[in-house]
């Protein structure tokens, strides 16, 4: 096999990081075994990659072998009666919800885009807007199988090989490669979801609103105007949503049809949305986006309740195809911090103030409500998360980098955590501080057991754990 002709330039989701690797296409468990053997022979490191939706270097392995898992995407079992799906790791959330929705089921946890693969979802242990109610996706996995670099295929569940179950999920693909995943779906009684939208006028009200509304709803998410400082800092809009109960939707049979769930692919019926990101570019700067944020806040003043399809509610990031390209040539990054409810307000006030003061405002702020979980490399807290998107330019890299280091200090001092699918600049020292020496030691011990030759290494692993 001539590896040279598989050399591929891979990117992160935000198009802000590029690294070339040898891409090996995987279809079966045997393919993974052969790739391990090849890597051993050549002295190369291996990383699995799904659709490359991480904002950072989680699925990049510059100069090594990247297993392209997107071809290992078959459903193995689907039982519409119990809602249990067993499938290969390359199955995307899009494939998954389209498989189960017509039968009255929905994936228990989904990300903001449906392009993610299940293998990636487990490796990062993703959360959704319902994290405070149902935890991360790992809590809905009943069993999985994974191949370790030794060639062993291990079956794990909360009962069987529990230590590996709770560490491979959240383990960033560094202990083994998932070969099959069994997940329990969530029952739905309608293709629609009831959303309550209302404005909040400052950060204190914003966070209190998330806290107070959470117990009464299934999903909650906040949008935050990142250009406003002072007393209105943190103003924005809350979307609190609940699934409809049986009988609430008289046309349930119809709304659960796939045709009902499709996102429109044209804007105003004429403009193909695939071109929209070009039109957005001139506005994606400090002045233009400040206006967009302000306009959004004004339009958010109307308190209203409405119903929309599950796909429309969950997959906001898929509304504008390739929207992440609108940030331009140097791409974008996301800084997401998870803070306990007691310290969140003060820390985020400092972060947003600092951001505006330094002339590097974030262009998008999104808040969620969270709860802790038992997984080894968890990002869960009893509190909130704030995700801030930043456009990267050749001119702002230095300032942004220095600022994010200060953010890390603020977050760590406030007892916060970071999420390994998002932040790209977290240092090994910051990771050690929030995970704790004991957790890192435990991870290393498991790594040694599953992968004695350190065959599995991503750029993220080298950044954080070496």
């Amino acid at each position, binding site marked *: 096999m001539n590896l040279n002709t598989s050399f591929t330039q891979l990117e992160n989701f935000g198009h802000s*990081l590029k690294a070339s690797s040898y891409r090996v296409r995987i279809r079966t468990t045997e393919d993974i075994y052969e790739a391990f053997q090849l890597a051993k022979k050549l*002295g190369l490191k291996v990383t699995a990659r799904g659709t490359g939706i991480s904002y950072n270097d989680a699925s990049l392995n510059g100069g090594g072998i990247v297993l392209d898992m997107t071809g290992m995407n078959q459903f193995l079992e689907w039982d519409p009666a119990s809602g249990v799906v067993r499938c290969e790791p390359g199955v995307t959330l899009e494939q998954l919800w389209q498989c189960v929705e017509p039968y009255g089921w929905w994936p228990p946890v989904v990300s903001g885009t449906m392009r993610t693969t299940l293998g990636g979802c487990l490796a990062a242990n993703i959360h959704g807007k319902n994290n405070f109610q149902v935890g991360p996706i790992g809590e809905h996995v009943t069993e999985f199988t994974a191949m370790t670099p030794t060639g062993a295929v291990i079956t794990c569940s909360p009962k069987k090989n529990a230590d590996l179950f709770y560490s491979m999920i959240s383990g960033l693909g560094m202990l083994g490669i998932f070969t099959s995943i069994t997940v329990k779906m969530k029952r739905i009684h309608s293709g629609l979801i009831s959303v309550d939208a209302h404005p909040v006028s400052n950060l204190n009200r914003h966070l209190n609103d998330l806290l107070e509304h959470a117990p009464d709803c299934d999903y909650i998410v906040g949008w935050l105007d990142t250009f406003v400082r002072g007393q209105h800092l943190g103003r924005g809009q809350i979307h609190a949503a609940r699934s409809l109960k049986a009988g609430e939707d008289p046309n349930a049979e119809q709304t659960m049809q796939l045709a009902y769930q499709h996102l429109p692919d044209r804007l105003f019926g004429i403009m193909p949305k695939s071109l929209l990101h070009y039109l957005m570019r001139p506005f994606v700067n400090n002045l233009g986006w400040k206006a967009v944020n302000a306009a959004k806040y004004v339009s958010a003043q109307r308190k209203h309740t409405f119903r929309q399809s599950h796909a429309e509610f969950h997959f906001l990031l898929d509304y504008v195809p390739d929207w992440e390209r609108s940030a331009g040539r140097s791409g974008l990054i996301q800084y997401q911090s998870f803070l306990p409810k007691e310290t969140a307000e003060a820390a985020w006030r400092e972060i947003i103030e600092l951001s505006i003061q330094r002339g590097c405002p974030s262009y998008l702020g999104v808040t969620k409500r969270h709860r802790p979980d038992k997984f080894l490399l968890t990002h869960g807290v009893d509190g909130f998360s704030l995700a801030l998107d930043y456009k990267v330019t050749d001119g702002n*890299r230095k300032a942004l980098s220095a600022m994010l280091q200060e953010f890390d200090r603020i977050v760590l001092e406030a007892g916060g955590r970071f999420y390994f699918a998002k932040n790209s*600049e977290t240092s090994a020292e910051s990771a050690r501080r929030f995970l704790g020496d004991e957790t890192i030691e435990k991870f290393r011990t498991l790594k040694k057991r599953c992968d004695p030759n350190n065959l599995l290494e991503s750029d993220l692993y080298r950044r954080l754990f070496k």
Partner: protein
Amino acid sequence: MSDTFPAADVPRPAPATPLNPRRRGLIIGASDGLGAELARKLAQDGFSLALLARRRDKLDALCAEINAALNERRALAYVHDVAEYDKVPALLRKIVADLGGLDLVIFVAGVNYPPGGIDKYNFDNDRKMIEINLIGAMAWLHPVAEMFQSARAGQIVGIASVAGDRGRVGNPGYNTSKAGLATYLEALRNRLTRHGVNVLTVKPGFLKTGMLKAAQGATPFAIEPSRAADDIVNAMKKRKQVIYTASIWRWIMLAIQHTPSVIFRRLSF
């Protein structure tokens, strides 16, 4: 270099992040002269570099100098003789892994053994020049071209010479090696441009390096290698195809190339 598993875990350069991006470059023939100047400049420009040469001591000193100046591990040293073609694939694989990718390859390695008079011939020397200047380049740039074509990204720079623009009485072997290299680079360019890969041919005149001492006769317009390195880095940024350095050589060589053979073969330079 070890070909066995597990490969020694060399300390890699600091990992690239969106806010601390690193392009990765390989310079073949980096221990002194133009190669060393290019290494210094590209490291300043944010590259992580693999530096190849035959002489361990010079290479280590250069890496130490670059890493100290930038206060981080940016340059890695590899001892290699360009004429050992069979070692290239495994070494290239190791370099790409150590650097964490590959975006740029510069082939600088070259030797010049003038025959010592316009009526002297020396096959052994001519053969060495072809083996290093031309076949050495092909041994390295062939797999690199294959990888860059596949990745649809990358940049290749080859150091040819004004000496390749015309066969002259003074040094037929050197002229031939550099003419061959220039033609090879042109062919690569024609193959790779359609795949988004830039190939830059550099034709230096006289550079004030060790090679200059070997040159016989007048050496007009000789420039410091650092100036040539500046020209090359600028041309790389503009993704140019062919440059002369110093730039006056473009006009000189235009005149020389258009000198009719009936006159040229009577000249003694």
